[in-house]
């Protein structure tokens, strides 16, 4: 065991050197292929679509391309020594007399990027393999479209993560939003899927506004949008009050808004549960592992900017904590297992933001890393269940799966995922959640202790609802009902078809990954004064080093809690040191949750229904289960407060447009020439005599003019003399003043 740990640690150890960038354009440009391979896959899938390919070729293409990206990432990681910028091509270079705006298509490779890219590309490849079997029902129809969407998504995600400036991040941001829309709306004939896709895109848009404004403010305050230059400016402390006080304080809040939109926090989380309308690989890849972590990545990348305002990080922490609690309560009352997993994702993302807020970017990054694996495994098992039981996802109608033939792998990988999610001792989730929970008590901040206890309570709820799913679905007596997607089979003679090699293989690999993700915790650090393992090393080499736990160097207080550059605090929990105590507290809370689930959902399943009945019957407690089952009516509140007024306003505007602008302005202005012409058109009636009358009238006028020309000229002259005289009078008046 120790040898394995040492081998792994030697693989993963990276020396930390002072940050200085070296521009390698020659021998590192192969790293650009990490970004280009998904694009190649997209193009090839497009060609397949144009040729109406009816085999699994798009899947093979995508897997090969994404696998190449993953291998290149591994190579990059292997040869990593220091943060580097790899210029791919010049993109935007606008210079003018007062300043410049430079945003090149370049890759900024530091350890944080590598950490993210490892699990993004790795999980991307594995999930593409999974999807090649999962989506086989759609071969010939939407198969190619699906893999094209996955390729677009991965291209955008690599741009987002590996870009060296905020504009590339924004490009990736929008790209993943678009890919998410495209893939959620994969079943475009279902109105609910289309509505969910629109909802996702629009709610993300609200966040995108924040990001765009933030980028602009960053540029106008710091003069650049490149990460390294921003860090330089910040470190040299050349910013002062003359930097424009309010913009510097507004930047973190706008970035926060963007992150909340993309990572589904309060109040912008409503799109994520609906996004489960997409195929399950999409949910696993995008809405569990990669896209929703983009918000966390954004905050980690711009972490120094969040230090500029005193209340930015606490806001992040409180929003994260409340979201975690809210989502956990909702998840407890849902019956659709995919939806439960979606709420669990929201809840865990809340944990990550809580971690960021209590200044442990290490904890947040670690939780991202582990969450990617175990949530992916949970979604993929839900998908396998859906695939095998013709779309059945209701946990009231499935039971005892682990005893069925061919479903053992699914059940046990699901168990692994559930254990990690619940924070069972010595799983990866245990360590990552602990890092966050402990820090909540260490850092001194507004109400962080309350937040910590709320987070612990939420951990208990998480354990409960996770194992509710597992005990209901995988344990107990065998029972199943087919779902809605029977594809023409007869319901009475339905046999579930168990997953085959591709799905099982991927499930096993990811489950192993989830288990092994605990290991980085034990890797000894090579950098002095940091502790936290390999993840902490990776995060330390990035601008977010302020959140890496370590020892304060100057002052020589070797045991003080804090980071290298930033003293955090000396909180405690119940009188004990949080880091040590949290191991036990979270374990106890987890066991309590699992115990409740065991009782209500395995040993005495009817007790759950009876409890629910009792709560519903009594007027004082009726609100609890109904509100939880209806997701606290958040969607309805949004519809009433935001959507309805906008809809009414839209209606008013359309009425205004139709009856005022169209009628009065457009048609009125169009009608003027027509009316004018109609007025004169009787003149053209073709009758000689009326022409003669008109001619006579004209001749009459001309004769009048000629006869009275002198008088007319006199009159006009007198008029002009009058105006000239008035002008003179006015001029003299003005001059006089």
């Amino acid at each position, binding site marked *: 065991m120790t040898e394995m740990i040492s081998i792994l640690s030697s693989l993963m150890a990276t020396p930390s050197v002072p940050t200085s960038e070296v521009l390698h354009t020659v021998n590192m440009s192969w790293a650009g292929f990490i970004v280009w391979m998904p694009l190649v896959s997209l193009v090839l899938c497009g060609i397949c679509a144009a040729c109406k390919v009816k085999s699994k070729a798009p899947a093979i293409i995508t897997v090969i391309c994404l696998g190449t990206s993953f291998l290149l990432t591994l190579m990059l990681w292997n040869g990593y020594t220091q943060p580097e910028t790899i210029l791919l091509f010049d993109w935007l270079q606008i210079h003018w007399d007062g300043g410049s705006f430079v945003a090149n298509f370049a890759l900024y490779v530091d350890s944080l990027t590598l950490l993210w890219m490892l699990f993004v590309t790795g999980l991307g490849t594995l999930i593409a393999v999974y999807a090649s079997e999962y989506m086989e029902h759609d071969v010939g129809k939407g198969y190619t479209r699906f893999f094209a969407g996955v390729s677009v998504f991965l291209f955008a995600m690599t741009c987002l993560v590996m870009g060296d400036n905020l504009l590339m991040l924004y490009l990736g941001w929008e790209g993943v939003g678009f890919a998410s829309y495209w893939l959620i709306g994969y079943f475009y004939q279902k109105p609910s899927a289309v509505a969910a896709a629109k909802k996702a895109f629009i709610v993300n848009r609200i966040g995108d506004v924040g990001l765009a404004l933030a980028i602009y403010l960053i540029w106008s305050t710091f003069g650049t949008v490149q990460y390294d230059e921003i860090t330089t400016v910040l470190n040299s402390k050349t910013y002062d009050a003359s930097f424009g006080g309010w913009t510097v304080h507004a930047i973190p809040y706008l970035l926060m808004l963007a992150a909340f939109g993309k990572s589904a926090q309060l109040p912008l989380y409503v799109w994520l549960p609906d996004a489960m309308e997409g195929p399950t690989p999409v949910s696993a890849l995008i809405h569990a592992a990669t896209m929703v972590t983009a918000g966390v990545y954004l905050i980690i990348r711009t972490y120094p900017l969040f230090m500029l305002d005193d209340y930015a990080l606490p806001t992040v922490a409180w929003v994260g904590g409340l979201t975690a609690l809210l989502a956990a309560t909702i998840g407890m009352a849902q019956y659709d297992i995919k939806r439960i997993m979606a709420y669990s994702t929201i809840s865990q993302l809340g944990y990550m933001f809580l971690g960021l807020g209590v200044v442990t970017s290490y904890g947040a990054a670690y939780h991202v890393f582990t969450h990617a694996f175990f949530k992916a495994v949970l979604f993929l098992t839900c998908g396998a269940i859906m695939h095998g039981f013709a779309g059945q996802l209701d946990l009231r109608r499935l039971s005892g799966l682990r005893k069925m033939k061919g479903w053992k792998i699914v059940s046990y990988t699901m168990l692994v995922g559930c254990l990690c999610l619940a924070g069972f001792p010595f799983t990866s989730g245990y360590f990552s959640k602990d890092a966050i929970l402990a820090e909540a008590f260490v850092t001194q901040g507004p109400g962080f202790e309350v937040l910590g206890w709320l987070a612990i309570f939420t951990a208990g709820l998480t354990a409960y609802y996770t194992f509710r799913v597992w005990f209901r679905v995988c344990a107990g007596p065998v029972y199943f009902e087919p779902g809605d997607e029977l594809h023409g089979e007869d319901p009475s003679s339905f046999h579930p078809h168990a997953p085959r090699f591709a799905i099982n293989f991927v499930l096993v690999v990811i489950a192993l990954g989830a288990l092994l993700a605990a290991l980085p915790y034990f890797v000894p650090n090579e950098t002095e004064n940091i502790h936290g393992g390999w993840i902490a090393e990776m995060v330390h080499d990035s601008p977010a080093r302020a959140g890496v736990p370590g020892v304060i160097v100057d002052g020589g207080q070797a045991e003080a809690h804090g980071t290298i550059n930033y003293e955090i605090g000396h909180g405690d929990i119940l009188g004990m040191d949080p880091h040590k105590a949290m191991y036990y507290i979270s374990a106890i809370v987890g066991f309590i949750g699992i115990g409740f689930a065991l009782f209500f959902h395995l040993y005495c399943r009817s007790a759950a229904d009876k409890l629910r009945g009792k709560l519903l019957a009594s007027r004082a407690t009726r609100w609890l289960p109904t509100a939880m089952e209806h997701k606290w009516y958040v969607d309805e509140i949004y519809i009433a407060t935001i959507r309805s007024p906008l809809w009414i306003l839209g209606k008013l505007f359309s009425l205004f447009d139709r009856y005022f602008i169209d009628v009065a302005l457009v048609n009125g202005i169009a009608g003027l020439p027509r009316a004018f012409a109609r007025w004169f*058109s009787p003149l*053209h*009636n*073709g*009758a*000689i*005599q009326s022409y*003669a*009358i008109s001619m*006579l009238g004209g001749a009459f006028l001309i004769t009048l003019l000629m006869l009275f020309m002198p008088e007319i000229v006199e009159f006009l002259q007198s008029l002009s003399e009058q105006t000239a005289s008035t002008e003179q009078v006015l001029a003299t008046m003005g001059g006089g003043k």
Partner: protein
Amino acid sequence: MMTTFAPSALSGYLIVSGILLTIGLIGFFVRRNLIVMFLCTELMFQSAAIAFVAVGRYYFDYSGQVMVIFILTVAAAEAALALALVVLLHRQNNTLDAETIVELKE
């Protein structure tokens, strides 16, 4: 009989000419029969003749009367051609109504 011509007398002749002109004009606008329309134009020629001769007599300049000769000439030529056209139109439309000739309508 070389009486001089008072200006008031000249005015009288000119007014008569004007009245005849106006009547001819009104007739031209009002009547729908093509031939009667041309007759009204001939009436206007008459008024022109009176006016020319009156003013010529006032100044003892015989160009006025010469002008009337030419008016006569032109009126004759015009009448001939106009009537030929009217005959043709009548052959085509079988009517003399000026209201039927509205092909130049918009």
